[in-house]
């Protein structure tokens, strides 16, 4: 456990290592495309083609690990904040029941670690796949081909699932603190020691837990049962004929990813709603205790309404359009099948744009919360001390809260989304046109560059998400400092007043 704690702190290293792998793959992809004519049917071509199927995914895996570890750091800070505040309240005789952490809150870091280990295992299989390819063992090569990428899908399921469960844990802990803090501060001032009733189901939308699990099952199913069935079929019959699942297994993995990203969008929206609730509830408590008028919090940002729309659009795109296209193409193969792989990236780009917007709003809300907390605690301490509140101090007003947004990170995500989209338009379209016109060489060139290019786009998005969470870690640290200091002061003066 200690080792995992140490690893979690290294989220920035994981992010940069992941970016390095993705960029290396892009470089090798460009090299392969430029030297296509000279390396055809050589060992270099075998190594590069197999390397480029797995290593970009491994790079994306490390980026996801970095994001997950940053989330784990946030969870730890939130828990520390709650623990230290509870310890302070206990000094004043205010004790409360702590919420028991559910399974996903206890194990999401393990999911992340197991996820990256599975991705590393898939990389070992890739090395075996390269070796059997060089020595021309056809059956072993095909079976390893069938198993390697879907196994990577299991790793992806655990990594993205771990991220979603990490966010669910943030929702749970934040919700608990938002509900308990004003109540306990109020009790401290009013000398009321009733034990509060806290209901877990009120803290977080449980349907979203189910959705995360569903997404994980879909993504992992590319390996079990699909790849296992395909490998057994190939091993027993020794035929390259397509089996019923052969053409849709990877679409199923991506449907799972889309479900998990959809679920992540809603976890982020819930975090936004708790951050807003924190300001409004604390504001109400301060006004109730001090007798001041309630200062309403700023209006909800209009852009927050776009987030669920993007989440639904991204999921529907993946579910209907490409799932249907993949099914049709598995029965009647056509040139349209070339659109399936890169076209899935459109869904990812839409979902990630929504996630980027949600993260942007979270950072704005955290800044607004950081502005408000010292004022609230300062007023409560004044009330506890029995002094008059200084009305000459201007309350912080925030008419243009969008100005607080870290736009550089958001634009970075948009650039990533555009790169991802360009995998379809123009690359996949150009590949399709050249295939129908019989320009196979040009079509192959596009085919070889699409994978590393789209991975670079997604990699840039992941890096920006990781940096967003890194920014959030900073604000959660500041929030911890202000809340623990503030509660400690309130309790100190409350106890001193009693004496």
């Amino acid at each position, binding site marked *: 456990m200690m080792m995992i704690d140490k690893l979690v702190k290294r989220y920035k290293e994981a992010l940069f290592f992941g970016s390095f792998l993705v960029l290396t793959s892009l470089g090798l992809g460009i090299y392969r495309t430029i030297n296509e004519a000279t390396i055809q049917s050589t060992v270099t071509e075998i190594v590069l083609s197999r390397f480029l199927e797995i290593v970009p995914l491994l790079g994306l895996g490390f980026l996801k690990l970095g994001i997950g570890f940053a989330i784990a750091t946030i969870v730890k800070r939130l828990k520390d904040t709650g623990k230290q505040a509870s310890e302070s309240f206990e000094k004043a005789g205010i004790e409360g029941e702590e919420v028991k952490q559910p399974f996903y809150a206890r194990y999401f870091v393990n999911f992340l670690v197991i996820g990256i280990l599975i991705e590393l295992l898939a990389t070992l299989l890739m090395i075996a796949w390269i070796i059997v390819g060089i020595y021309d063992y056809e059956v072993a090569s095909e079976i390893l081909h069938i198993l390697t990428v879907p196994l990577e899908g299991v790793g992806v399921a655990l990594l993205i699932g771990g991220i979603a469960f990490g966010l669910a844990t943030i929702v749970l802990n934040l919700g608990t603190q938002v509900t308990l803090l004003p109540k306990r501060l109020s009790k401290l001032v009013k000398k009321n020691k009733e034990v509060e009733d806290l209901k877990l189901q009120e803290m977080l939308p449980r349907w979203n837990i189910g959705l995360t699990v569903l997404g994980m099952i879909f993504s992992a199913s590319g390996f079990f049962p699909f790849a296992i069935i395909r490998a057994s079929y190939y091993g027993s019959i020794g035929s390259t004929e397509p089996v019923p699942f052969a053409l849709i297994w990877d679409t199923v993995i991506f449907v799972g990813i889309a479900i998990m990203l959809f679920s992540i969008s809603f976890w982020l929206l819930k975090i936004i709603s708790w951050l807003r609730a924190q300001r409004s509830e604390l504001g109400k408590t301060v006004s109730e205790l001090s007798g001041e008028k309630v200062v309403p919090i700023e209006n909800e940002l209009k852009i927050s309404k776009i987030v669920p729309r993007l989440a639904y659009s991204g999921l529907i795109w993946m579910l209907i359009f490409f799932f249907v296209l993949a099914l049709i193409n598995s029965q009647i193969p056509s040139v349209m099948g070339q659109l399936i792989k890169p076209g899935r990236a459109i869904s990812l780009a839409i979902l990630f744009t929504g996630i980027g917007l949600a993260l942007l709003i979270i950072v704005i809300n955290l*800044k607004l919360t*950081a*502005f408000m907390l*010292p*004022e609230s*605690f*300062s007023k409560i*301490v*004044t009330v506890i*001390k029995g002094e008059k509140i*200084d009305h000459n*101090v*201007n*309350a*912080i007003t*925030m008419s243009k809260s969008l*100005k*607080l947004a870290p736009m550089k990170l958001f634009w970075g995500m948009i650039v990533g989304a555009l790169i991802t989209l360009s995998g379809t338009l123009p690359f996949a379209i150009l590949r399709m046109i050249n295939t129908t016109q019989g320009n196979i060489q040009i079509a192959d060139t596009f085919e070889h560059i699409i994978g590393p290019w789209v991975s670079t786009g997604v990699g840039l998005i992941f890096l920006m998400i990781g940096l967003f969470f890194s*920014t959030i*870690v*900073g*604000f959660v*640290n*500041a929030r*911890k*400092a*202000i809340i623990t*200091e*503030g509660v*400690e*002061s309130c309790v*100190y*003066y409350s106890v001193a007043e009693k004496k």
Partner: protein
Amino acid sequence: MNEMDDMIKMLAESPDEQRKSMLTQRLKMIAGQPDEQRVKSIAGLVSSISKLKDKKMKGFIKARTNLLSTFPEEEGKAIMEARIKASKLLDEKVNKTDLMATIEATKEWPEDKQKTFMEHLKQIFVKLGMPMPEFK
């Protein structure tokens, strides 16, 4: 890494008005803290400010010093006393740079206000039994 580092960085990059309001609230909150905690909070604040780039750091210290001069006397003195006590918790260079920049900021004040500030500072050093450094 200090828990307040990112917050101070964010404040340093915020528009003047927001920075002023937030810093006022934060200093008010610190002034209301128990003595021991106030010293720790001030040490944390000074340490975080010292990590800013030179120009931003000096601007921040100037804003802090000017704000403190608008505080009620009791609160202002409580913060100043905590600042001097925090010297023991801070790196020597950080402590000296912060104190020098504070004195530098007061040089833009009218002479009588400057004089009062220095007298208060001297009184605090005497009260704490600490030698007052030469601010040159």
